[in-house]
């Protein structure tokens, strides 16, 4: 009887103990890496914004919109958006100068096909967005100003559409923000 009990009890206790140790080790690792992971993410955002706005001194993040300051002047806004590509989501950082003009875009992450769709990360493609007015953010074959990538229309269009649609959405928030800020100063 006693041996039957220990036959059942031993595996249960052993597994519980193993799980307990595993959980403790994991939570220690999580605590130890948490700050570094956050720093890495902040540093990545800062360097991305700096690439879009070389004059950036500081930035402020509120309601998923980055406001970019050079000294005390607002020089633009930026936000993250994502488009549905061929291989998954394409995350894009979009910089806008004002309500109508793009400053530039950067592809943050993507899983497009190497050699085809992943050419959206190449400089000639992303830099063709710089300075465009929002109404021109279409592929050339759709009547806009951007050269699509040969053989990767889905990926190119995903980027173009995501940038335009998100920008249209975000600029609505800008005037209010500026006013709110002016109101704060009084």
């Amino acid at each position, binding site marked *: 009887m006693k041996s039957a009990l220990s036959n059942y009890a031993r*595996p*249960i206790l052993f597994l519980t103990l193993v799980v307990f140790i595993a959980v403790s*080790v994991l939570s220690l*690792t999580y605590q130890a*890496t948490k700050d570094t992971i956050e720093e890495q993410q902040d540093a990545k955002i800062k360097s991305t914004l700096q690439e879009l706005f070389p004059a950036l001194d500081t930035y402020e993040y509120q309601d998923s919109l980055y406001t970019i300051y050079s000294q005390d002047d607002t020089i633009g806004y930026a936000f993250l958006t994502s488009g549905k590509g061929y291989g998954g989501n394409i995350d894009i950082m979009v910089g806008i100068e004002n309500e109508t003009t793009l400053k530039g875009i950067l592809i943050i*992450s993507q899983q497009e096909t190497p050699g085809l769709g992943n050419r959206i990360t190449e400089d000639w493609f992303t830099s063709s967005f710089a300075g465009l007015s929002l109404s021109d953010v279409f592929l050339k074959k759709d009547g806009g100003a951007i050269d699509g990538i040969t*053989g990767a229309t889905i990926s190119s269009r995903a980027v173009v559409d995501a940038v335009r649609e998100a920008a249209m959405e975000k600029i609505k928030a800008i005037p209010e923000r500026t006013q709110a800020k002016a109101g704060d100063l009084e």
Partner: protein
Amino acid sequence: MSRLRKEFLKGIIISNPVFVLALGLCPALAISISIDNALGMSMGVAIVLLGSNIMVATLRKIVPNAVRIPVFIVIIASFVTIIDLLFQAYFPPLHQSLGIYLPLIVVNCIVLGRAEAFASKNPIFDSIADALGIAIGFMLALLLVSFIRQMLGTGMLTVFGKELLRLPGLASHPMALFVLPPGAFLVIALLLALFRRMGVLKNE
């Protein structure tokens, strides 16, 4: 010592996890589009395999048989999660490009396979030699597949953003099929056939 050397060397060719045991094919097919990914993935697998083999070999005499597999899985999953957090903290670009395949090491049958088939029956040092051999075999296999796919599929060889080699003609008109999933199956199937033809399997 020669026994350890044998356990170490067998993983590289005689029981190469990918080409001979045909284990771990899922990550081998999915991430073998660039040398960077191959290196990152095999580094992850190597650390997990080493850690789990050591733990399993240490516990092999006291693990109750009935909960053997759950215990192994908990050990493996813990190592994978630790690796995932460490990569996220210290190698963010690599973490990004491996994506879901890093956490999926937990279901990589090489790791559980070695725990069950080897480490649970052998002493610690043999298990370390086994883990290192298998990990290197896996790395060589991934590098070989990635090299072929990257060369044919993009026409160039880039490692960590540095362009090492560019094939004229192929770079401007790459055979994109090879970086797509069908290319993975083709390349791995041909390599498996080649290994069989060379008679590597004879000793099994």
